């Protein structure tokens, strides 16, 4: 090939360093290999490192309770809470309550998930569907769903239905928004490539659009799980006769802060479990994704 750039003028270089012999050598600093720098903390397993923060918090709390800084009526000590939790499990109250609550979340999640996903597919895949569905959903979305509780009670009574409906509603919106955005965010170049490979409309949906929308759907699933627990707390604090929320309300009447905290811990635990499930799902389903995973 041809040479396009003239070599740098040697004279210019010489002029710049007239006394190149007397130049002091620069300070050298070692570039430490990453493996050496990481060695100490990195050798501890990741899950163990992640538990350090919560454990410290727990220890601090116990210290404050033991020294009387934290009065038991304000917040029971971790020890008391652990004992209360043990009792609740032993007499079967907590497992029963958890069963009821979990069932509510599961039913609401499935119901809301199906509704949200179907609506997102309708408005994501066709322009007609978008015109019909999207404006309506976007409008309804701006209504705070917690504000619908009174209406739900009037419509659906005080049984399971309003609680499940509340959860389904919160879940449906999150899934709708994220799946819809995921579908519309699929790279048009990939769609075109799919067309050039001879995929028909259904083939494009199946092999290009839906897999492309999956990351969005997973984000939606995460949000909707968080919302599901939130909706559960709201739903169960009204007219419930079973479930974790009911247990909490009962405890409030008797100033049992230890039981309240046990219930909160259960909520946190269930939320964490859900998060682990979604993480695992993401790892399995999105392993193709070229994203930054942290160092």
């Amino acid at each position, binding site marked *: 090939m041809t040479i396009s750039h003239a070599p740098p003028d040697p004279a210019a270089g010489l002029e710049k360093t007239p006394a190149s012999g007397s130049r002091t050598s620069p300070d050298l600093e070692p570039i430490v290999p990453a493996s050496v720098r990481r060695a100490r903390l990195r050798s501890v397993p990741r899950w163990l490192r992640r538990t350090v923060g919560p454990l410290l918090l727990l220890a601090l709390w116990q210290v404050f309770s033991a020294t009387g800084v934290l009065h038991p009526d304000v917040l029971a000590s971790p020890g008391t809470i652990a004992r209360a939790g043990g009792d609740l499990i032993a007499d079967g109250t907590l497992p029963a309550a958890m069963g009821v609550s979990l069932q509510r979340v599961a039913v609401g999640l499935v119901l809301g998930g199906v509704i949200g996903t179907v609506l997102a597919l309708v408005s994501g895949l066709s322009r007609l569907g978008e015109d019909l569905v999207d404006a309506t959903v976007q409008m309804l979305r701006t209504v705070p769903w917690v504000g619908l509780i009174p209406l739900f009670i009037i419509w659906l009574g005080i049984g399971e239905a309003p609680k499940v409906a509340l959860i389904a509603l919160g879940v449906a919106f999150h899934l709708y928004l994220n799946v819809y955005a995921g579908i519309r965010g699929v790279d048009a170049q990939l769609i075109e490539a*799919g067309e050039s490979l*001879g995929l028909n409309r259904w083939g494009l949906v199946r*092999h290009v659009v839906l897999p492309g929308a999956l990351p969005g759907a997973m984000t939606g699933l995460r949000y909707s799980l968080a919302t599901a627990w939130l909706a559960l707390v709201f739903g169960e604090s009204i007219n419930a006769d079973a479930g974790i929320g009911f247990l909490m309300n009962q405890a409030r009447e008797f100033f049992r802060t230890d039981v309240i905290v046990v219930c909160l811990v259960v909520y946190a635990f269930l939320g964490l479990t859900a998060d682990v499930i979604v993480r695992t799902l993401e790892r399995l389903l999105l392993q193709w994704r070229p994203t930054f995973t942290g160092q």
Partner: protein
Amino acid sequence: MATDLHRPVTAPAPSPAGEPEAAVRVEGLTRSFDGRAVINGLDLTLKAGEFTALLGRSGCGKSTLLRVLAGLDREIAGTVLVPRRRAVAFQAPRLMPWKRVWRNVLLGLPGKPERALAEKVLAEVGLTDRVGAWPKTLSGGEAQRAALARALVREPDLLLLDEPFGALDALTRIKAQQLVAELWQRRGCAVLLVTHDVDEALLLADRVLVMREGGIAYDTAVGLDRPRGVGAPGFAGLRSRLLSELGVEDGGAADAGADHQQQEVAAAAHSGV
């Protein structure tokens, strides 16, 4: 000099209708964007098995023509006849990131093709050991080769290449060009290579077209012996002729990148008028 030997014969007369060995027949093709005709009454015939390069400045409509031939752009007027079996390789590999390489290769094939079929064609492009890899783990050259395999597995009668080497580094590009030349010789399908690189066109093609003002402005056969090098006799003459057709004066020292920039500047100035 040798240049004169390769002077274009007059633009090939549109072959009589029904000539069997035409891989592409285009008559009076017009494609407008917002009332501005990017392709204007274009006629083109590509012979079966012929390797044609289509040169042009940025924005001259060469990629639009390729998209029309691929069937991706149908907002057209005129007659366009293309083989049913045709395949495209784009500038970006455009592999589905959620499918492993072999699944990408088989994507869109009718029926239930076997993995072995993908393995065979991937071996042909030298990707035997990346059959089960995720696209994210491929290098730029590997991804482009996978995209080429995906096009070839369709056994196309017409292979459309839209600047497929544009995003590759110089060394990888040379290897990819060699690979395309090899594959074409083995497969014998008609190839239309859209490019802005004159050297690339001359290294690979039997025939070079220059597109300008919405039509084929210049058409020449390339009678150089294969395998070719930039130093082959006659190469330089053809090169400067093509460059002048593209509106670039060949100073003999401008590299391809500079050419491209000049073209773009010129094209921008042109479209502003």
